[in-house]
């Protein structure tokens, strides 16, 4: 049995006169013990999808199951067995770290001691502040506490809606390490993020944009589908270089990626010659170019263009 199945889910919102399609015919499934990432920009429909799956919203049409339970008919069973961490910090700000955790343990009819093993590594980091009010924690600590609260009843499926948004790079890295440890414990994790670099940390990813799933595959699978050649270019005058590249007719796409610009040429163009021409014409200094293997982010950029 799959941990999560989603079939043809449609969800629309009526906002004033217009109708917004938040989820447009979404289908996918997640295997048990998998980390499944939903990657997409803001407004792609990630939170709506999470709310449908956590039984908080009714979809207009389509079906979805969690651990075999239907999200409408079996909502009570689902609410017993999943952990949910909403995108917005949703704990009691006026309760202390420990009180929050105790509360969430108790409403799931368990105790902190019973499942301490599961949260130990995360909780140890915030334990020095356990008497502090949740509202006074830093962003990263809030996320860790929220994760602890979502985990304290040993859920079989964990829903994390943008858990790393607004969290510093070090904490983000730690957070993902925690997720991998949880995966080893057999917990299925559905995680959404707007950061594409986090895609490679998932077992499988779905790229989402404007309520549609663009591609569902393993990270390697998505990269394998990418047939085009990617060039990385660098010069001292990065901004002018970008404008120059965008204006060139032979170039299909061009994005800044850290120190380099990643460039894809139209099929007919004579790649390396063209690049050299641009460099010479534009009098760029320290011009550097090389052919590289595509990364997951290149693939997403490509998919989102289509």
């Amino acid at each position: 049995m799959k941990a999560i199945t989603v079939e043809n889910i449609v969800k629309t919102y009526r906002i004033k006169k217009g109708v917004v399609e938040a989820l447009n015919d979404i289908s996918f499934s997640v295997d048990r013990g998998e980390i499944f990432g939903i990657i997409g920009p803001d407004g792609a429909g990630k939170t709506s999808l999470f709310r449908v799956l956590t039984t908080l919203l009714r979809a207009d049409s389509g079906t979805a199951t969690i651990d075999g339970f239907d999200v409408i008919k079996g909502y009570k069973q689902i609410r017993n067995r999943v952990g949910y961490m909403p995108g917005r910090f949703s704990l009691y700000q006026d309760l202390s770290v420990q009180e929050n955790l105790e509360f969430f343990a108790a409403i799931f009819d368990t105790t902190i001691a019973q499942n301490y093993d599961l949260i130990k590594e995360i909780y140890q980091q915030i334990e020095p502040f356990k008497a502090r009010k949740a509202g006074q924690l830093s962003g990263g600590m809030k996320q860790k506490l929220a994760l602890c609260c979502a985990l304290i009843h040993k859920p079989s499926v964990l829903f994390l809606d943008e858990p790393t948004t607004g969290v510093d790079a070090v904490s983000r890295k730690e957070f993902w390490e925690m997720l991998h440890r949880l995966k080893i414990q057999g917990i299925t994790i559905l995680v959404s993020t707007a950061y594409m670099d986090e895609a490679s940390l998932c077992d499988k990813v779905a790229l989402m944009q404007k309520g549609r799933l663009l591609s569902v595959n393993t990270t390697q699978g998505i990269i394998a589908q990418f047939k085009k050649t990617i060039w990385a270019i660098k010069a001292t005058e990065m901004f002018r270089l970008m404008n120059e590249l965008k204006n060139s007719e032979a170039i299909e796409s061009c994005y800044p990626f850290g120190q380099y610009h990643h460039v894809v040429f139209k099929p007919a163009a004579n790649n390396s010659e063209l690049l050299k021409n641009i460099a010479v014409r534009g009098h760029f200094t320290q011009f550097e170019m090389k052919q590289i293997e595509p990364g997951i982010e290149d693939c997403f950029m490509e998919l989102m263009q289509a």
Partner: protein
Amino acid sequence: MKQFLIFVKKEWLHIWRDRRTLFILIWMPVVQIVLYGFALTNEVKNSNIAILDQAHDEASITIANKIAASRYFNLVKNLYSYNDIEATFKQGKIRMAIVFPSGFRHDLLHANSAQIQIIADASDPNTANTLTNYAATIVTDYQATLNHEQKLPYTISTQVRMLYNPELKGAYNFVPGVMALVLMLVCAMMTSMAIVKEKEMGTMEVILVSPLKPFRIIIAKTVPYLFVSFINIITILLLSVYALDVPISGSVWLLLAESILFTITSLSIGILISNSATTQQAAMFMAMLSLFLPTLLFSGFMFPIENMPFPLQIISNIVPAKWYFVIIKAVMIKGLGFAAIWKETLILIGMTAALLGISIYQFKIRLA
């Protein structure tokens, strides 16, 4: 059960840590009772008057002294001409003037009839009425002492007894009224915030995805407020007995039990409001609008319900405070037992059950 208790504990912590709100909740009834008790009274006391005595004889001086000595009146000015009367009224210094014509005693003894003119400022008709009545009573008293000496053939004397409140104290009426008003406002407003707050803070999203049942959430949210309200009931009763001299004639336990019942009714109204509102501000506004005015108007404590047009009398029946007001007056002032108020009690119980039922039924198990 453990789920329930931890939820109650959590709610209690919310109340306890928000010290400012807790302070307001505890002190609001005290302030209201003191305000109504000493400032907003409609009893007439120490009204300023002036006397124009053109007779200056034994009779007029005796009556004038009696009036000036009464606790209702405060003689501020002796006038010497008729024209002064209007001038003094216009200055706003007096509410009433009394005029004795010249030869007052002479007329009284020899013509068997004398006149006193009482002029009152009727821009406030109720006060004017009360004042002239008081003055007339004092004059009648004087007349009675005169008559005592000479026997009249036929006299009918009325004996008036004011039951339950012989001194006609306003406090006997408003203490039950303020109890109804304060308990209704405190309880309903407090709880109307309770559920909306969880929606606003986003915590509702998390506790919905848990095995918590709606009716447990609702009951758990009302319990700590019941405790706060109980403190309010005690302070109001202590204040009314020791500060306002309104005794509790009936059973204290019955009074407390009925008050707790009314508190639960009010809490249920708050929960119902909380269910349908989406922001704390909206909930607050709804509670104020739908509770404050109806309670004030239809509980019968400010305006007698019997005097209202028939449709309004019917509407007044759905205001819980009306029934509670009747109960409190019966138990506290008249000293009646449960036999006299079982009907009102039953109505309150029915209302509470209906309100709680609707709240639990309406509780949204999903977002939106």
